[in-house]
């Protein structure tokens, strides 16, 4: 069993690396090849042609694409993500700081959404077909499709302006303690929770229903075990497995949501860093930010798959693809 898992894991890692490589190609193409003339894009249509050529040479974008790519990827492997065009200093520290802030926000969002949505999904499954089930399922599905900037506005208006119980900016004052930081992170976490709830609850509901209908559950019930014990011991364990995978895939959507939420709540995370870089046409910063986001997602799915297979080795063959 162990060696099988090791082999599976090795294959899974190589697939992740392949995806990461393709991602780097996409990001490189988007950041350095598609703009055509990077110098012209930065300096604008009125700039002198010689200034554009000089800037292109200085940035190294007048070299052949393959040379540029190798230079860029080589730098990345040494932890050098290039130099910001806007700040004239290395990109990596900016991204590191922003990533830490975003992870804090994401952690708060996950701490709220995971228990809430799994609980909601399991309750819906145990009461399948009733009004409670329909309410949870319908609310989840409707909330999932509301853009984050809409739910953020509702949160700001409701809690920040009318009730005045939560701050409307996520940036805490200098030297704020963990509790104060948490208080500032709850408002931006709510829109992220709202959008995640439906997906995770749906998976938890489906997993629970499948487990409820499984033979081992019937056996346990026929054996005379009390319902609470059956649910606790047999149903939940099996139901929550697919949910782990969904939570990992949700990180990608989460980061997409971060762009909007961090902007609205004025929080300097990776999402607002990417947006600022995009607005300022700061290509190295933009590429570094996007690649980081992609790497985080690929890493999260890898860990989730590994966890799922570790808990249930029978899944291994179907998860290599």
């Amino acid at each position, binding site marked *: 069993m162990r060696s099988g898992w090791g082999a599976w894991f090795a294959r899974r890692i190589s697939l992740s690396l392949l995806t990461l490589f393709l991602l780097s190609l996409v*990001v490189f193409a988007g950041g350095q090849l598609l703009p055509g003339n990077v110098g012209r894009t930065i300096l604008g249509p009125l700039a002198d042609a010689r200034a554009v050529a000089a800037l292109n040479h200085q940035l190294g974008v007048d070299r052949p694409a393959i040379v540029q790519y190798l230079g860029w990827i080589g730098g990345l492997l040494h932890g050098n993500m290039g130099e910001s065009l806007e700040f004239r200093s290395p990109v990596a520290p900016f991204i590191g700081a922003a990533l830490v802030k975003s992870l804090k926000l994401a952690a708060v969002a996950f701490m709220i959404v995971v228990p809430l949505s799994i609980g909601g999904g399991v309750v819906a499954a145990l009461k399948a077909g009733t009004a409670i089930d329909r309410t949870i399922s319908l609310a989840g599905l409707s909330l999932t499709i509301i853009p984050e900037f809409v739910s953020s506005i509702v949160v700001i208006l409701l809690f920040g302006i009318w009730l005045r119980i939560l701050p409307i900016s996520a940036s805490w004052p200098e030297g704020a303690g963990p509790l104060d930081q948490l208080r500032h992170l709850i408002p931006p976490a709510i829109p992220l929770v709202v959008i995640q709830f439906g997906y995770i609850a749906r998976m938890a509901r489906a997993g629970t229903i499948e487990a409820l209908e499984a033979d081992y559950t019937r056996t346990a019930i026929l054996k005379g075990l009390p319902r609470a014990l059956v649910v606790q011991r047999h149903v939940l364990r099996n139901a929550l497995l697919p949910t782990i995978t969904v939570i990992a895939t949700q990180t990608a959507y989460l980061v997409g949501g971060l762009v909007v939420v961090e902007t609205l709540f004025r929080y300097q995370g990776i999402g607002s860093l990417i947006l600022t870089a995009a607005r300022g046409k700061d290509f190295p910063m933009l590429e570094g930010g996007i690649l980081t986001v992609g790497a985080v997602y690929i890493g999260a799915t890898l860990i989730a798959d590994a966890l799922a297979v570790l808990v249930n080795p029978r899944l291994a063959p179907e998860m290599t693809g």
Partner: protein
Amino acid sequence: MSAGTTTSDAGPLAELTGDMPAEAEEPTRWAVLRRSGTFWSGTTIIGFWALAAIFGPRVVPWDPYATDLLHELAPPSAVHWFGTDQLGRDIFSRVIVGSRDILTIAPLATLLGTIVGTTLGLAGGYLGGLVDTLLGRIIEVLISLPLIIVALLALVALGLSSVTVVIVIGLVFAPLIARTVRAAVLGERALDYVAAAELRGESALAIMFIEIMPNVMGPILVETTVRLGYAIFTVASLSFLGFGIQPPSPDWGLAIAENYGVIAGGYWWTVAFDAAATASLVVGVNLFADGLHEALAA
């Protein structure tokens, strides 16, 4: 999915045998759709905004672009039903007319994505091989990035305009639509009518588009309506971020971006109605998609 013959050379015998169940199926699906509250509430909401987009500019009480600096940030009243924004523009008129741009760009992007995605999905599913492998990898990379971020990167690289927004969203959606179409095609490929067409010597193109495509229209239709919901979501979010619809359009996402700076002062009406309009449209499209999905699954 019914596997009825779709070619014109189906004789009277085919009508007696193969096509009978397929025809008997149609009314039940239609009946499910007709009785579907989900479908009709979605249709009503979409219909309302479509009418607003078409006739809005002619029926709204105020010029949505006219600024009135003497009445800026006026609260809702009998004169300005939804109040006015920072430039004194009538918010009710702007919300109604604000449906125009998003209801043009999002459907166009979806259409482009559907055409490209269906072609890729048919090719991947029917031809298999390299096309299929390549498609799988592209999807893998695409889903590892949030849609908004891919769109940001492409829009910065290609330059901002309504046309690039349509192209970028359409092309990002294409592989995702292709995945659904491919799965449906795989189910059809093994059926006899495809083998028969191959024996008749029909070209691969004819088999893909004339034989297989009509039989996978159901999944394509559902996928398209679902994607339309996401397209509206994405265009609205991009406009909010400044990378979608551009000023002075009364677009909802743009209006929220322009006004959310002043809501701390209590001017809630400058964003609340635009937020509600955005929410109603995405919910409407999703209700429509759900209703359609239920009916086709029946």
